[in-house]
């Protein structure tokens, strides 16, 4: 099948061609902006890149104006080595050690294909951590499902848990905590959030930037296939004469074994000093990696798309640009180091190809079959996307919701009623033991897990000699957040903070995963702005900075949004893990004290 890609020359020669920007999720004003930036219509390849990079998921266009508060209200701290904006924040924990941690959502994919959706959620967050130069040391998984007895929960939950276990266990990362919450509001929108924490020496921090004109851009890991590019088919159908392209799957399949090799290979090339800049490939794949690397560096890059190792040779260039194939990384390597880099990839049996080089043109230029199909200023793709001040207003129903306080509920009166109430509470899925979930996760691997399930926070030993360690907890009560998003977010923070402090660790830093409905709904946007403000204020009061996080919008079915669910993760440091405190009462006869009101 011979086809001609839409080149820059074509875009200039045929300026008025209709383009399916709306199908790709771009608004008319956004499309107009792209034309203005380029001074011409975009090629289909450029349109593919802008559409994925300017999506809500990649550009944070609705949340940016609010998230600024995390920076504006950042408490005085000298523990942050790398702040918000990088793949993950890096926190100094002393003795020359640092840790990096982040939580991300994989909600919608997990609803469509629970096992693979959840598995690739773990895979994605782990690559964020290794791209900072850190060795991953533990994972956590805050989960939300619909009613426990709903048939669709029976489809979704076992798959999600098996997927998280299947991927995390196979990577050899202990699972040290998480949440399992049931509520009708998540019936069509389960929340699968995944957290990873990694450790590194201060000198090993790496950033995603392409510096050094003449340095090479190397793509390594799995081959690129047609995963997760439902959208790109629209573009391809434009350029196919007959029939249209093959239908591409919207889901990705993970290969944890490949990811394990990728971890070892990446840490080895980093420690050998062979890498100038590094970036994981997640959402938006090569579009994201090349534009972000170029945008953070000298600003220029030339890529030869024909060099990308493919699993499926029918892929169009637009599809290659958008593919979300898992288990891939991109590195910037000096020509002198290339041979050593390739040797380490060969040792780990990891595919690897030079796909381009760093230039000083200030442009990201991508070629296909010798013709230029992309020629853009990388910043406009990666960083200067649209920003929206979405309208928001306190929902009309908020007052009546708050007015319905529990004082109107019937109280158990007799001993029999109290007994029944207690039994109902104990037997309710939200309060019952979660062992049936956590028993499917390896919590022992690596041999540094000091606390895990059923403790309120996980504790991991970082340094075997000194006993230095970290504690982590993730928390959120979506019902509180619905009643009062500002205080609900503060409560989530306070709970995670207490859980970490109760182990004996000193809380140091915060990450978050903000799960909400549609930002185009002013009610939801109000919840969001309130929650962000509450979290930022709470962090300022407690004196610990937000180091990063993730926003997941559009968790709603029709008009009905999930409860606002700002999941908060707190990380603390403990000088000697042997001094940690567990939940259990240890010795008969000890006094029991209650602190606080």
């Amino acid at each position, binding site marked *: 099948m011979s086809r001609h890609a839409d080149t820059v020359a074509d875009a200039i020669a045929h300026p008025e061609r209709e383009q399916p920007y709306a199908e790709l999720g771009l608004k008319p004003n956004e499309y107009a902006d792209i034309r203005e930036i380029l001074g011409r219509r975009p090629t289909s390849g450029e349109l593919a890149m802008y559409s994925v990079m300017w999506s809500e998921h990649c550009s944070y266009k609705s949340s940016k104006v609010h998230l600024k508060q995390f920076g504006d209200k950042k408490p005085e701290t000298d523990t942050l080595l790398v702040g918000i904006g990088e793949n993950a924040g890096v926190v100094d924990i002393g003795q020359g050690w640092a840790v990096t941690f982040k939580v991300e959502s994989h909600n919608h994919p997990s609803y469509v294909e629970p096992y693979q959706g959840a598995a690739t959620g773990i895979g994605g967050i782990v690559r964020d951590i290794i791209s900072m130069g850190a060795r991953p040391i533990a994972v956590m998984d805050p989960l939300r499902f619909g009613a426990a007895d709903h048939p669709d929960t029976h489809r979704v939950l076992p798959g999600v848990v*098996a997927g998280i*276990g*299947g991927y995390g*266990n*196979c*990577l*050899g990362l202990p699972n040290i905590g998480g949440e399992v919450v049931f509520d009708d509001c998540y019936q069509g929108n389960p929340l699968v959030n995944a957290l990873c924490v990694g450790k590194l020496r201060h000198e090993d921090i790496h950033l995603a930037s392409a510096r050094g004109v003449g340095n090479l851009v190397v793509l390594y890991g799995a081959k690129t296939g047609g995963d997760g590019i439902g959208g790109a088919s629209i573009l391809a159908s434009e350029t196919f004469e007959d029939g249209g392209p093959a239908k591409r799957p919207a889901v990705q399949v993970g*290969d*944890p*074994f*490949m990811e*394990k*090799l990728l971890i070892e290979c990446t840490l080895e090339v980093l420690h050998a000093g062979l890498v100038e800049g590094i970036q994981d490939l997640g959402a938006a794949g090569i579009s994201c990696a090349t534009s972000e690397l170029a945008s953070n560096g000298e600003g220029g890059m030339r890529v030869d798309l024909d060099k990308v190792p493919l699993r499926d040779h029918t892929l169009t260039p637009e599809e290659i640009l958008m593919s979300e194939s898992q288990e891939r990384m991109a590195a910037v390597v000096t020509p002198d180091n290339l041979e050593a880099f390739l040797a380490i990839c060969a040792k*780990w*049996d990891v595919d690897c190809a030079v796909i381009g080089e760093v230039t000083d043109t200030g442009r990201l230029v991508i070629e296909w079959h010798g013709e230029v199909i992309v020629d853009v200023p990388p910043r406009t793709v990666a960083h200067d996307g649209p920003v929206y001040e979405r309208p928001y207003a306190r929902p009309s129903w908020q007052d009546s919701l708050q007015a319905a306080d529990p004082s109107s509920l019937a109280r158990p009166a007799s001993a029999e009623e109290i007994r029944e109430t207690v039994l109902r509470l104990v037997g309710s899925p939200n309060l019952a033991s979660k062992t049936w979930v*956590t*028993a*499917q*996760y*390896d*919590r*022992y*691997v*690596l*041999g*540094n*897990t*000091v606390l895990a399930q059923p403790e309120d926070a996980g504790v991991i*030993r970082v340094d*075997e000699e000194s006993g230095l360690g970290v504690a982590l907890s993730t928390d959120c009560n979506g019902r509180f957040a619905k009643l009062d998003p500002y205080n609900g977010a503060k409560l989530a923070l306070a709970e995670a903070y207490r859980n970490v402090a109760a182990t004996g660790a000193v809380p140091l830093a915060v990450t978050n995963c903000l799960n909400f409905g549609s930002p185009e709904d002013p009610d939801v946007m109000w919840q969001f702005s309130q929650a962000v403000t509450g979290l930022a204020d709470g962090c300022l009061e407690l004196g610990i900075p937000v180091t990063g996080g993730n926003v997941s919008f559009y968790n709603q079915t029709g008009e009905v949004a999930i409860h606002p669910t700002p999941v908060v993760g707190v990380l603390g440091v403990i000088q000697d*893990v*042997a001094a940690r405190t567990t939940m259990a009462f240890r010795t008969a006869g000890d006094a029991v004290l209650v602190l606080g009101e």
Partner: protein
Amino acid sequence: MRIGVVTFPGSLDDQDAARAVRIAGGEAVTLWHGDADLHGVDAVVLPGGFSYGDYLRCGAIARFAPVMGPLVDAANGGLPVLGICNGFQVLCESHLLPGALVRNDHLHFICRDQKLRIESTSTAWTSSYEVGQEIVVPLKNGEGGYVADEATLDLLEAEGRVVARYLDLNPNGSRRDIAGISNARGNVVGLMPHPEHAVEALTGPTTDGLGFFTSILKGLVEAS
């Protein structure tokens, strides 16, 4: 004494096995799956994990790794070898031990603190336990059900080659509650549970697992 720990692509508990060797007082030597020889080690641990992703069958691909050639020869010649979890699966696939390990009967991966009874102390890896001693060590597997035909099971029992049995709860449907077995000579032992995760009070449920590593070191010292 130098104890080799083999790393296959996808091995996960290799660092833990090496740590256990060190805590027991030995020297841990890293062996790579592509190695052509065993670097003169005195014993070998095949660690847990997901070698080659556990694709195909657990241990099926690792069995053909270059290092397995000299290892199988040495084991047949009496070199002490301990296979833990995935390592046990590799030993069965290599026919150094009889039987096979299949999908857990409940179909889930399971991670729990498992009570075991030590049934045989005449192997190279269990000599510092008492017969009938009860220990608790972590267990974590998705394909840990031990199966073999009746004649093989009877033979293992008759020859005292059942090394450890599950107590209280059979976590995976293993025939006759078998958690570990040895070859006839007692130098090769395969074990589903993870003694290397029970060598420090801080990180394990107990330190009951240390005995496997002290057994081998004591035996080697006495033999030398």
